[in-house]
């Protein structure tokens, strides 16, 4: 018994630094959600003698007309991003797989995967420049076809779609490579057999490729479900402006503005808490479903 413990002790010791870090920087902030139930005064400190006000902050938020709008924006933007973010890479991976030249295949992959590694600060700067109505290259290009200038980043009708399109642009290379990796795993014998049976490309895609990567499709869709309330803080923050708050403000940017700019700590924490609870439910169920349908286990 004693000997076993001695053998085990180093393992426990190894975990100490990691545990200390997550306690300090994850669990203490979790305890900090109590701010949501307080009339929080920062000067008194996180564990200071704050005034408790029950659910007042939540009630206040629910009665804000902008809150419903923000919630709607979040769901709208993020669900379109999720759906397109699943379908476009899939279609693209299947098309790319049909290419016979390895050289082209590899260069295409390299090009589409690159934006994934650039920050939204950099991409935001690029988008602001190329989408600008005054001299932006996109509007100039549209001008050749007689399209009148579009204010992509300043027009409430266009802004959500600009967000969705640019998000797909940044991320679809990643999804494509995941799907391609899965396609590579399919037994080539199946394709040969199908060719002998007289199947054309379309038959093969429909009856071999798609069923062959069904697990990955299910897994990615299910796991993305957990991200439903994350409409992309980094992106929105770098692209929006007061003109488009109406269509582009999402939960995370809302929390930032009312919390840190207006210093309504309690209210902002209440919104954050609301978001975290729903996200927790979504992520847990998505992991559960992923295990159920794709046998995906995180540990």
């Amino acid at each position, binding site marked *: 018994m004693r000997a076993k413990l001695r053998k085990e002790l*180093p*393992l*426990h010791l*190894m*975990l100490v630094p*990691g*545990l200390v*870090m*997550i306690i*300090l*920087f*994850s669990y*203490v*902030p*979790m*305890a*900090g*959600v109590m701010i949501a139930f307080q009339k929080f005064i920062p000067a008194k*400190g*996180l564990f200071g003698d704050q005034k408790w006000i029950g659910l007042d902050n939540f009630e206040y938020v629910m009665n804000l007309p902008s809150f419903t709008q923000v919630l709607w924006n979040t769901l709208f933007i993020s669900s379109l991003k999720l759906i397109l973010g699943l379908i476009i890479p899939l279609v693209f991976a299947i098309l790319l797989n049909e290419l016979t030249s390895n050289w082209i295949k590899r260069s*295409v992959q*390299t*090009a*589409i*995967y*690159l*934006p994934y*590694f*650039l*920050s939204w*600060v*950099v991409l*935001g*700067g690029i988008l*602001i420049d*190329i989408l600008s109505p005054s*001299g932006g*290259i996109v509007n100039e290009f549209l001008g050749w076809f007689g399209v009148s200038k579009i204010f992509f980043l300043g027009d409430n009708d266009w802004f959500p779609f600009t967000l969705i399109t640019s998000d797909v*642009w940044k991320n679809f290379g990643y999804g494509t*490579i995941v799907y391609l*990796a*899965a396609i590579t795993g399919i037994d080539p014998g199946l394709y040969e057999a199908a060719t002998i049976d007289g199947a054309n490309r379309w038959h093969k895609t429909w009856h071999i490729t798609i069923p062959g990567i069904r697990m*990955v499709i299910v897994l990615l869709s299910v796991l993305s479900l957990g991200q439903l309330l994350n409409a992309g803080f*980094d992106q929105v*923050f770098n692209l929006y402006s007061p003109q488009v708050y109406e269509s582009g403000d999402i939960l995370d940017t809302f*929390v930032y503005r009312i*919390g*840190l700019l207006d210093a309504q*700590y309690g209210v*902002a*924490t209440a919104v*954050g808490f609301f*978001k*975290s609870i729903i996200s*927790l439910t979504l*992520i*847990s169920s998505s992991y559960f479903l992923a295990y159920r349908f794709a046998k*995906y286990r*995180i*540990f």
Partner: protein
Amino acid sequence: MVSLLCILPLIHIVAVSFSSSAAASAGYVRLWPVDFTLASYMYTMSRTEFWQSMLVSLTRIGIGTPLNLLLTILVAYPLSKESHALRFRSVYAWAFFVTMLFNGGLIPWYTTIKEYGLLDSIWALVLPGAVPVFSVVLLLNFFREIPKELEEAALIDGAGHFRTVWSIFVPISKPALATLALFSMVEHWNSWFDGLLLMGNPANYPLQSYIQTIVIQQNLSNMSRDAMLDLALISDRTLKSSQIFLGSLPIILAYPFLQKYFVKGIVLGSVKG
């Protein structure tokens, strides 16, 4: 065609950044610089803020990445053991896992770091993300694939767990660790929001936060009058483009060489078995 669409915007920005201000503001620049000039780069590079923030970013990577790797290894190794070899294994595993599922939100997070007195210090950028739980998951799954016999042999030879990690697991996992290191570096290089939020003094901004204030927020308030006059000679567009390009340069340069690791990284993460 689609892949061109992905990189054309980047090429355009580079072209703008090397063009003369007149050509850029008149909108003559497409994919090749017009009236080639380095003026905007000279200007950006002459700013002390630029070099200061570059130094902050490099320090951040220098401290952050080794710390991330060290903690990932230290956490992943014990958790890769069976639960009979490590008591409370599932308690530990859940403790880490929960941090991926739930967080206190922005305000409590900010308040906590403020209470620790970390604002305006490099540690505020490095410590909160010190344990990348997702990397831990990847690495522990990788560790599990390592044949048990190797470890047993080491234990018989009298090596303790620390010895075993260092001289057996780490060398074997080099490709996985390289991938995780790259992701951690990219992450640190690209982070901008924590810098903006936690650094009160712009002198402590990492490069991406600095670029964010200049390019996106157009924050000219902390600029001297002389700087303003200088600026009048270079167009806003070329200047911003040069900063955007410099901000992404390390990644663009390293990318072709590192791409295979990156691909390995996502395959490591998403498609198992």
